[in-house]
């Protein structure tokens, strides 16, 4: 069994640290007006041109206050972000439900999109279980272009019969704050198309060919792969250390999530406040991204 020791700076506590007073209400940043139908949503190119986000705006966003926004406003934030650098190291994560939605972890229902109410209980439990695992803690192996998910408690999966121990291929384990965490659900990392906003690439976390990644375990990893739920996530950087993500199952959007690394947040703040610029690993498009640098650097 391979054991990795990671920096312990990023724990669930860290995600909470990223939050504070600003979490009580939605971030006060500019948005374009919108209606309820698809045809009444602002075009992203015009949105960004007319309502650019400043660096100060980006620092008003916390993992928690995003959930005070409705989905359209979350989308308007995502579209005004760029991919930034492909992350490296451990990140805390959590999925969140936008304002106005149930907040219950029932992906089996959410996954239906417009089919809400028609699909409940269809393969639901397994999907809900996946939801509890996949969009939590992650470890990025930037140089290998691989991501693995950190699972704190294997017992849930074991109870559901989803862990198949293989003596010749033991589960990968790391130690976080003295506790064991298991690395499951490996995914490929690359720059690719956003399924929401085509104007620039996102960082893609793709489970389709999970079976080709070293350390793959058929069960449970296959559940996220191409013959399973076909999970594909995309993320863009809000600011150093904080990423906003969108999760898709079989190309249908299911849930938002955030990824946070406190150390990266702190380390990158001063420079980002000054310039509003970071290393862009992915194609950043040809529309000029208008990020207004904060007055007080």
């Amino acid at each position, binding site marked *: 069994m391979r054991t990795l020791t990671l920096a312990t700076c990023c724990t669930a506590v860290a995600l909470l640290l990223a939050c504070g007073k600003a979490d009580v209400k939605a971030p006060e940043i500019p948005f374009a007006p919108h209606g309820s*139908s*698809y*045809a009444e*949503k602002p*075009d*992203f*190119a*015009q949105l960004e*041109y007319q309502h650019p986000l400043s660096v100060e705006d980006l620092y008003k966003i916390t993992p928690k206050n995003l959930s005070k926004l409705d*989905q359209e406003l979350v*989308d308007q934030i995502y579209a005004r972000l760029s991919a930034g650098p492909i992350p490296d190291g451990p990140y805390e994560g959590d999925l969140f439900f936008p304002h106005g939605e149930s907040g219950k972890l029932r992906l089996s229902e959410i*996954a*239906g*999109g*417009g*089919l*809400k*109410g*028609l*699909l*409940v*209980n*269809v*393969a*639901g439990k*397994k999907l809900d279980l996946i939801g509890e695992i996949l969009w939590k803690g992650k470890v990025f192996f930037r140089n290998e272009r691989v991501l693995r998910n950190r699972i704190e408690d294997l017992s849930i999966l074991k109870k*559901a*019969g*989803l862990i198949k121990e293989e003596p010749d291929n033991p589960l990968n384990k790391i130690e976080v704050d003295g506790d064991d965490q298991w690395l499951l659900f490996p995914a*490929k990392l*690359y*720059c*690719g*198309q*956003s*399924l*929401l*906003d*085509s*104007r620039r690439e996102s960082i893609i976390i*793709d489970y*389709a*060919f999970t079976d080709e990644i070293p350390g793959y375990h058929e*069960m449970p990893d*296959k*559940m996220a792969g*191409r*013959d*399973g*739920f076909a999970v594909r996530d995309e993320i863009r950087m809000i600011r150093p250390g904080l990423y906003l993500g969108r999760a898709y*199952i*079989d*190309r*249908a*959007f*299911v849930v938002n999530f955030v990824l946070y690394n406190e150390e990266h947040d702190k380390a990158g703040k001063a420079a980002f406040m000054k310039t509003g610029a970071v290393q862009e690993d992915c*194609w950043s498009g*040809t*529309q*000029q991204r208008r990020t207004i640098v904060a007055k007080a650097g």
Partner: protein
Amino acid sequence: MKRVLTVTLAMTFAVATAMAVTATTADAPGATPTRSEVSEATRPSQAHAQDVPYFEACAREGLNESECAGRLIWFKATAGNERFHTYVFQQRVGVLIDWFRVLRADERGDRFKAWGAINDPGCCTPGSPNCPAKSLDETYGLDWCPGDEELLKYVGQSGYRDPACDFRDAPLKPEEIHGPVDQRQSACDLKFGTSSGALGIRKFPNPRFDRAAWEKLNGRLGSWEGYNRRIASSTGSGEADRSHLQDGAIEPPFLIGTACGSCHIAFDPLNPPADPAHPKWENIKGLVGNQYTRISEIMVSGMPSNTLEWQMFAHARPGTSDTSAIPTDQINNPGTINALINTAQRPTFDGEQVIKWRKTRSCEGTSDETQCWCEPGRDNKCWKRGLATETVHHILKGGEDSIGDLEAIQRVYFNIGSCSEQCWMNHLSDLRQLDPAQRGFGQTPFNIGQCRRDCPNFRAIEDRLSNIFDFFLSAEGHATDLRAAREKQLRSITTTVNYSEQDLITDLEHEFGAGAVNRGRELFAQTCARCHSSQPDAAGNPNADFMTVSATSGLREDWMGNDKPTPASEVGTFRCRALHSNHMSGHIWAEYGSETLRAQPPDPNIREPGDGGRGHYRNISLLNVWAHAPFMHNNAIGPELCGNPANKANDFYGQRPRYVDGSNIRLLPRDQQPACFQYDPSVSGRFELFKRSMDALLNPAKRIPKVTLLNEDVTMRIGPKLWDGTDREKLLGFQLTIPHEIDGRGVTAGTLGNFQHKEFVVDLVRAKTEPKALAPDLEKRFGAETGKKVLADLKAIVGEVTKPNGLVDALKARPYLVKQVYSACTAEIENEGHRFGEDLSDADKKALTAFLATL
């Protein structure tokens, strides 16, 4: 062997100036330049070796600088769509192109027969005599083409300087509003790359390519075996095979782009190649339209045949393309690639109401950038948007592109993928978005002003649209009459021989009967000229002259079509194309349709909606009809064309015959299927195809019905699949399988593409959540009786969908929902209609055929 030459060659432009070209070249087949005297005054340019045959063609055709510049752009400029064809289409749209399958050098000799793609005469198969590349590993399995001596160095590296950067612009025109200083966008943004080996398909080095990863996946550099190998789904259940083509983590060696020429470059009817697989440059023309291209199959070449995408795209006949397949309007409607000939004589329409951007020098007085915008960093390079009365052409099958010639050309670049990420992907309908509240549920309008601002490739093309249009008007776009074709044939034997109009008539009358041509002219005037003549007084005029030459253009005065809209029901041909909706208000190409177009009343005699100006076909030109059979907008009247490639995996006609039993729409047995007509671009081959197509046209009773059928069951997933990982890997998703037969009757491929699944799903949800509100809505849309029946069935289905295969079974029991109620077009027979002339005597039919051969 690579070598560098400095070459000068004569360029006898029509303006009689000679200019010098300094070329860097290699001794590739077909690219041997010549040396001649040049004028010092016009010696400025550096031309890539790959451009040399293009300049020679300009000289051969007598093109001036603007026309020649336009030609080069038409043949080579991708305007940045290499990202579309490598990343966007695959990842965002979810459709896989197997470029290696299409472009592999070891099947170069089979490429035309399989894909209808025209081989670039300048390219060669690595390892063949005189080819600079000696092994497939050097070129990653594709052809070696001029310019690759530089390009191949940058596979896996950044820093490639696109050959378009050396494009030599034609001088600005004196009337250029944004002049006199040249403020055109950098030519680099035209993005030429080098040829892929097939004309119009271009390649670019992929800086992200990882050589080691590629070798690991494929075994060697020259193979794509691991990349495109089919991987069976482990779930069974009829799931489609996968491949690494869908794996965005694998970067191929090249990004592949397409120029307009990918569909429009064709063999010259006047000078066809001796061997279509190995044409010479002089056999190539840019405006005829490739009658053999299987561009639709190319676009889905990486998809298994039991996928929705394959069945939706790969049903177009050779020479046709569904230009609304990517910006989908969910109406299956492949149409021919028009011959862009004698454009100077093409009818225009006065007094049309057009909202568009027009060049201006200042936006003084307005701060609204959505109405007036000046390009930053330029002087007085501004555009202003507004409504004005204009004289315009009607372009596309229904005349949908109707705000101006230049804008119609501009829109072609979006059809081929340019500026997709910056400007239009976000406006498309996402087939998997079922929530009307979310983006992607339906189309939203492309915004020309935004695209101009945000996409440099848009500006690079826009600043040179007049050159492309000049190319349309050039000698290369002149009609290619049968007389001239036969004369050229004869001159290949005896150089001094003449073949006059009278010689042609004599030969035609020998074949079709004495006096046939003149009798045919009379018949044409009586029965055809009301649509197929641009002379206002030709219809019914027994003395109408269709041969008069314009003193202004030197072309036949009559364009042989009036371009006016005719209701689809009047023509009676397959109507799905007439229902095309992308130019309607609120739809993707709304800004390219005029207000006049959209105000056109619907055809009252068709059952599908005809709002927004839909429901009509433009009366096309019959110029050179001898060379452009088979007929109709879908190439369906006349023999079916086939290439019979050696690689039977690419024998698309063989896999999908079209002739059916009209009583049950089921395929006729193999032994009753009429033989297909093998691609034959020779003069005699075109003429034979014309005659057989005329026979089918004038004898509708003899036509065996043609329908493109589903050739296997196809599963369409509505919403994501939901998989229970422990239940023996069984799929329990919300999906719809459309069987290839229902109740013993064949199901058309169009059934799938035309199924308005979003409307169905929304109604299904409403049947559960608000049935009372839905009831009057359904009755309004479908009529009282049908509306009630639909509601009752939807309510019943709601109770059935949560069972495994519930929806499949529910719809199987109610096929009318898919085939009729929720179908955008219910037409089935593709070669019906246009029965004009069926009552003529056999002699008159021959006479009409003889006359048409003279056009």
